[in-house]
């Protein structure tokens, strides 16, 4: 199945291209996708699938759009 992946900020070192199409076997989880790219820091990252926050155990399906970013914040109130 095909999913699209975008890394942000410093994590772009894993893939520069936005919306990179990746072929993965059916039934894989987010953790398999992270393995595919060799992502090292598995704890302090935010993973969005179709813009919703998920964790590594989330199952992926055909056409999913995955965004991987570092947490950040800003402002005071």
């Amino acid at each position, binding site marked *: 199945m095909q999913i699209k992946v975008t890394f942000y900020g410093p994590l772009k070192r894993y893939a520069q291209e936005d919306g990179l199409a990746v072929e993965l076997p059916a039934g894989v989880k987010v953790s398999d996708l992270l393995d595919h790219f060799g992502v090292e820091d598995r704890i*302090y990252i935010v993973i969005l699938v179709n*813009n919703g926050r998920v964790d590594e155990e989330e199952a992926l399906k055909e056409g999913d759009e995955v*965004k991987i970013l570092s947490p950040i*914040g*800003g402002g*005071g109130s």
Partner: protein
Amino acid sequence: MSFRYVGKPIPRVDAREKATGAARYMTDLAFPGMLWAKVKRSDYPHALIKGIDVSKARTWPGVVAVLTWPDVPGYNGFGIVVPDQPVLCRDRVRFLGDAIALVAAQTEEAATKAAELITVEYEPLPVLEDPRAALKPGAVQIHAGGNTHQHNLVTQGDVEKGFGEADLIIENYYVTPRQMHAFLETEGGVATADPDGGITVYAGSQHSYRDQLQIARALDLNPRLIRVVSNPTGGGFGGKDEIVVQIHLALLAHHTRRPVKLWLSREESVRAGIKRHREFLYYRTGVKKDGILVANEVKIFADTGAYATLGGPVVSLSVGHACGPYRIPHVRLESFCVYTNNGISGAFRGFGVNQVTFAMETQMDILAHQLGMDPLELRLKNALRQGDLNPLGFRMDTSVGAIPSLTAVGGSELWKNRWAKKAEATLPWKRRGVGIATALQGNGLGAGRPDYGGALLRLLPGGTYEVGISCPEIGQGNTTAYAQMAAETLECSIERIRVYTGDTRKAVDSGSTSASRSVYTGGNSILAGAPTLKERLRKAAAGLLGLPEDDLEFFPEGLRGKSTSRSATLEEVAREMDRLGLSREVKSTFLWPAAEREIEGAPGLPEIIYAYNTQIALVEVDTLTGQTRVLEVVSVPETGRVINPQGLEGQADGGAVMGMGYALMEDIIMEGGYYKNTNFSTYILPTALDAPGHVTVMVEESEATGPFGAKGVGEVVCVPVTPAITNAIYDAVGVRVTKIPVTAEEAYRALADNSLLPHGGTTPHV
């Protein structure tokens, strides 16, 4: 369009329990068998650690655990952007707040004594206390990568060409203080060990899901095993965006498998917690004789203290807002976010905008005086309009409220009657003045990454809705705004809405309460999820009532036929949904609109959406003592459609006083890396007796992307009031303030020897 709840002064949903003291904050919690924790912190602002001896502490009666760096099972570091702050220091301390060891004991007294018994052998290092000195060649390096945490440089047009076109150029240096958040509840909470091997941390904060990840990284635990509860939080103002106590709590609960409480005293909070960045600013501004701004050169040195936390993004916003809400075609904006051995600076309401607004709005006041122009007219002449290119070269496509805000302030009683008000000074040696300033404040997290949100909407069997949005309630009233928007969208009685925030188990991750983002994020997340849930309710009710779906309408307690008297309560609809196998729960998602690319030289910029505010102040300066009293303030925030006018007024009242303290009183003074004022006996805050008469005039420019047209209000309300006050002081006594706070002593000295000369400071700081 008329609304039932939106735009109405609905009483706060948490008002009764907070007003009566019934509300339980995280530091109020207690559990059976709970231990007390204390932190052994550094004795030096900068030193190598040569040895740590905890043997006496371990044997002190009542002590259950003493932890040092080898006891951190995961990554021994934390920090929102860069994890450069040790959880427990191993071989070096970089400021007085650094933690070296943790103690958990049966009583608070035993924990305190044991922490005192820990001995640390140090080798002191040179202390860097000025960011400009820290950049000099040969300065000791606080971190391996050097003392510059972040350097920004943004240029647009040709700044020297712009100055060549100018008829008047002014050049000044400004200094701003290290302000304390002064939240009522200092950092603290309780952690418990859960039977599944996990940890629950109850601690006030501004982003429970991000805390969860930071704790997980340090403990090397699956984030699923960590629950963070941070609602209600006893004040934040940005100071609880970063971790202070959470990892220490979790670590002690992890090792002892018992509940542990840690609650910092005010002194320890000042020592270990976050502050507003002290900044040194250079401004050179060029203007045509008709008042049109043509060039602005800005250089900023920001003291971020020993560790990064959000220093980089803060100083990016200083750059992004350095020119105020004005069109300026030629700019050069540069900043250095610099490590020192001072207390850590990070997020604080306004997030880098307060400092540059003080400088830029003082520049504008000086220009107006030198040009012989009315200061309001000068601002109106240069103010951004929708569709303009801003000084960063980014087009302002969303609502721009600078001119409506300025225009409204011009119509206020105080502005119209300012000459008469000035003449009403009560004694011959008192002088009155009126000052004006305006500002914009970016909303949301800016460019370069998705700024995400979401809501959990659930209809319970009893006919009540649960709304779960993680952005914690830190006192600003987002819980009430969420209830209003949910009731409006779900077309039900507001009594049927229960809002959950700040709990990783009860709400989906919708990001932080920061960046003036929580109402915009939560509201849009509710709007994104409600149609799906309502569609299911409609389907169930149609079957229940034997009516076509399009013949149904929602009413406060359920659904009913438009043309019949048949109706079903929400309880009945919930039962029918269960019978039909329709889920009563929806998880929505939402992404903020964002620029396609970041501005070169300034990571995270630009924001797409901005709030605006113009404030004017009437002050009275006692020329014998230097004391300034702020008598009246008028605030004109333009923050899109107002969801709750009572909530906005509360924010504006508090913001005006916070910005007033920044102008006149507040500064955490550090000498040689040591704090000089760590409690309210010496750190002077405005009290109710100091608060001015305050009028809030709401200007509502509906923002097309906002929920019901809303934007964020939390920060901009405290920003321009500071230079409005200092400009009023100039108007009163002719002394130009370029360094804040301008305390009575400072003003007295300036009046006595005229050392604060008109039009700027006399000593170059750059």
